């Protein structure tokens, strides 16, 4: 690993002088700042570097290719496919095999669309950007190529294990040059086609890709096509047996036909029937699989797998899927590539050798942040291609491997400002660690607006992460409080169902009232309803507001009743007794008697209990007097009634 070390220089003078420290910030960022190491023996005080100048904190983040706008399409679109795939798997009524093949193709078409976008874009930019885009194209081209081969080998159902037609398709798809040239030639000016320097390379190229009909069509356009040798070649190619699993011919029968045909062609070659045209002679030697001829045309093939498909077509047309690996190695040796295999070559070889684990190992190191390995592993896992590895490799668990990729990819996306929802849908499918990861990451997403908070809250609630939801509400409540929006803070506190926090806010309301005699957020207090029951303090606040309203609308009798029941209820915060007593004075002194003698006893009783309150010191006399006078009035009045 040492070779992978990378050094980043933080361009800051203070950092250079003091040294650095770093800490993780949520979720995949690191903050780097100037820091001087102290030990216990040093005095606790500002360091020599302390100053009033603003200093910088540097945020470091891994460069994530997938966060490029052009690739975000891929991220989101493939997420749709991923979710469909999980849906298919959970639906037991579907034929998983054919559905998975469809989805695999969908993934490939997503990659293709992405490549097309990149190719569009590359024509619009210059310089360094162009190089970056070129790199992306290379990466996604490899992905497409590997995915296609893996689809053929691991996902597709191949009748009779006769894999060659699919391999030819694969090669044709990824090396479309010859097909394009042939099409251009055949649709263009047909006279003197062989004068085109590309004529023979195209003929050979088409031949190597097994497009015998194209070869014949091209040869027909040659000006000497009426000559004996051309007609002979055309006849031979026309008579070439092609294996088709649905034709009803058995493999052994076909092999006999094939051998007859090659023997026939070989005898014609031996009779030097084609020597007049070296190119045609070469073609004939190729179709019978003559080693020297194949060595001659190796340079026509850009890669070993192009050669492999061609070689198999003319020498082993009925090759079985599990034999491909050994032929692949053979071709690599032939092209002398064993020592300079590129990454793509290694992955393809591993796939052909059915070494799924090796394929996964290799594609992990591709620099597209795990998009490929996550989705391909997921596909292979659900296609059941990983479970048989468990028997072969010790300590290997298909589930764990599958989950670890999902977890990595999901958390990577969660770190993006905008893609967190996509990330969530991957973590959802991690059976053991997923929910825990969500539990940790979700509360760390910045809550910029209430709209976003509501969305995050919904995700938490959908996953029954009650405490996460509550803590998010609390955070939002604290934010509102800081902004001086007490009413809003209370609403969030009620949503969080946190009693102490609600009480804390209710206290705030009451404190404000003791300060300036105004109750805030009356529109909210008006409609508390059953929410009031969240905490004692809130009940008090609600009831006190009711009292306040009655008092102000002049309904003194009802106000007085409420006041007495409040005094008797013992839910009055200590700092608020004073206010209640003071507000009782005018009621005690009111013209009409509003407190009965019993009510007055309650008031006096409370007064005696609280007489030590310092704020009451200069009011206690007046209160006692008022209470006594009211008591006398009430007793006299009540005596009259008896």
């Amino acid at each position, binding site marked *: 690993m040492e070779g992978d070390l990378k050094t980043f220089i933080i361009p800051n003078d203070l950092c250079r002088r003091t040294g650095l420290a770093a800490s993780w910030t949520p979720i995949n960022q690191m903050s780097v700042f100037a820091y001087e190491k102290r030990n216990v023996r040093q005095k606790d005080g500002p360091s020599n570097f302390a100053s009033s100048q603003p200093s910088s904190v540097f945020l470091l983040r891994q460069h994530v290719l997938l966060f490029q*706008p*052009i690739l*975000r*399409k891929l991220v*989101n*679109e493939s*997420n*749709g496919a991923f*979710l469909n795939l999980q849906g298919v798997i959970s639906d037991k009524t579907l034929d998983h095999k054919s559905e998975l093949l469809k989805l695999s193709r969908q993934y490939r078409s997503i990659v293709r669309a992405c490549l097309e976008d990149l190719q569009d874009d590359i024509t619009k930019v210059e310089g360094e950007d162009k190089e970056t885009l070129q790199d992306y194209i290379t990466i996604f081209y490899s992905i497409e190529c590997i995915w296609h081969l893996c689809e053929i080998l691991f996902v597709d159902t191949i009748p009779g294990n006769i894999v060659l037609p699919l391999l030819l398709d694969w090669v044709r798809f990824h090396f479309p040059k010859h097909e394009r040239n042939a099409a251009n030639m055949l649709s263009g000016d047909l006279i003197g086609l062989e004068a085109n320097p590309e004529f023979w390379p195209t003929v050979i190229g088409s031949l190597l890709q097994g497009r015998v009909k194209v070869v014949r069509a091209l040869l027909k356009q040659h000006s000497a096509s009426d000559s004996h040798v051309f007609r002979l070649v055309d006849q031979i190619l026309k008579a070439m047996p092609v294996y088709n699993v649905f034709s009803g011919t058995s493999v052994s029968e076909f092999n006999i036909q094939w051998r007859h045909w090659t023997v026939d062609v070989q005898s014609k070659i031996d009779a030097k029937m084609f020597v007049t045209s070296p190119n045609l002679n070469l073609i004939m030697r190729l179709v019978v699989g003559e080693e020297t001829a194949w060595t001659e045309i190796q340079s026509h093939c850009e890669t070993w797998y192009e050669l492999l498909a061609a070689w198999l077509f003319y020498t082993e047309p009925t090759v079985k899927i599990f034999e491909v690996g050994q032929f692949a190695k053979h071709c690599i040796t032939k092209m002398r590539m064993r020592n300079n295999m590129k990454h793509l070559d290694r992955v393809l070889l591993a796939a052909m050798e059915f070494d799924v684990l090796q394929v996964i190992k290799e594609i992990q190191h591709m620099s597209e942040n795990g998009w490929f390995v996550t989705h391909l592993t997921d596909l292979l896992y659900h296609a059941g291609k990983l479970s048989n590895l468990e028997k072969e490799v010790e300590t290997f668990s298909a589930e764990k491997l599958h989950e670890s990729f999902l977890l990595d990819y999901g958390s990577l996306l969660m770190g993006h*400002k*905008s893609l967190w*929802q*996509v990330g969530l*849908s991957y973590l959802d499918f991690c059976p053991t660690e997923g929910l825990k990861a969500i539990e940790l990451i979700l509360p760390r997403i910045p809550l*910029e*607006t*209430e*709209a*976003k908070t*509501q*969305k995050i809250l*919904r995700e938490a609630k959908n996953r029954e992460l009650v405490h996460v939801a509550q803590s998010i509400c609390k955070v939002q409540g604290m934010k509102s409080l*800081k*902004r*001086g*929006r*007490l*009413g*809003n803070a209370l*609403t969030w506190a*009620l*949503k969080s169902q946190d009693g102490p926090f609600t009480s804390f806010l209710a206290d705030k309301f009451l404190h404000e009232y003791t300060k300036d005699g105004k109750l*805030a*957020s*009356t*529109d*909210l207090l*008006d*409609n508390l*309803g*059953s*929410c009031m029951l969240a905490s004692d303090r809130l009940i008090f606040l609600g009831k006190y507001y009711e009292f306040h309203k009655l008092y102000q609308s002049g309904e003194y009798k009802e106000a007085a009743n409420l006041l007495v029941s409040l005094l008797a209820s013992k839910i009055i915060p200590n700092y608020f007794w004073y206010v209640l007593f003071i507000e009782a004075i005018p009621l005690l002194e009111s013209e009409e008697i509003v407190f009965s003698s019993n009510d007055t006893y309650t008031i006096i009783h409370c007064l005696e209990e609280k007489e030590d309150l310092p704020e009451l010191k200069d009011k206690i006399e007046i209160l006692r007097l008022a209470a006594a006078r009211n008591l006398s009035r009430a007793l006299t009045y009540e005596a009259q009634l008896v």
Partner: protein
Amino acid sequence: MSHNLHGTFVSQKVNKIRWRPDSFNNSHFFITGSWDDDQNTIKLWDFQENEEDDDIYPFLVATHNHNGDVTEAKFLNPDYLLASSSFGSARLIKIENKYNEISLKDEITWDHLHYFNNKECSPCNSFALYENDIVTVGEDGRINLLTAQSKLIVRRIDEADSCSLQCVIFLKHNEILTSNLRGQMKIWDLRSKEKTAINTFMLSGDHVTPTCLTFHPTQRHLIIAGDDLGSLTTWDLRHNTYPVNVLNAHEGSISEIQFHPDNPDQLFSCSSAGEIWHWSTKGKAGITMEDSNIWLAPDNIKNKLEVFTLMPNLGKPINSLDLNRNRIICGCDNEAIYLINGITLYN
């Protein structure tokens, strides 16, 4: 159903999507407003339909950077568009066509419309239009009255609500209805000097947050609210402020609802659970003129409505939808926009 679906990935989560009105033809221009990205944008697109080619793509015409999330966007007329931002501002944007090149240009910018007392800016959550009058509401509980002709704020009601205001609509030219986080609905008279609402009522007793408000296209006194639990609540403001009926509809919170302007018995809704629905009334038989408005039927309303799913579930929130004749566009959190063509309007 004969409609068809075209999806396009746009690399940004779309919070608002609106057709550009076109009085003579089918609209083919539309705008999208993004949210929750490092640089949010308003984009103008063209869905030019092609008779021969079945596969149609929206073609990006112009991009306009927007500070903060696009919290609401509406066209005043085909050339002017109003957009509000989570940074507390609103902008009047003109679609300019100069030398055959279409671009978006800021005409009027109202900054700091919404702010908290500690100077932090507050998101402008929504706004409503009545001809040239604009009313904006925000998380700071403030109401601003603007006009599209001037940069000045015509009227401001500070602390109109102690909770954050979520939605606003015009009931009359001088009356607006706002809804807040706790589900309190308030009616305000804009002419009144008072800083209090003339009427207050609750969405429900359980403090559910309304997420969208709309009125019936022909009967403006009929109000429907969608909320964060997925229910649709209807009021008839002529009679009283108790809901006429409550309909449990979507799984998640309802993002937007829209009546078909020419076929008022057709309603469209989308939700955070990734659903987009088309509501239609069942057969006309037996319904007299008097109770022809199905939404005012007190009970069994569910039996009288049919619901069609317009799109397979996306699994990500659908944030916005807009309707033009029989075509719907919607914008989603999977960074895609969808055109649904050929909606069947059941009559």
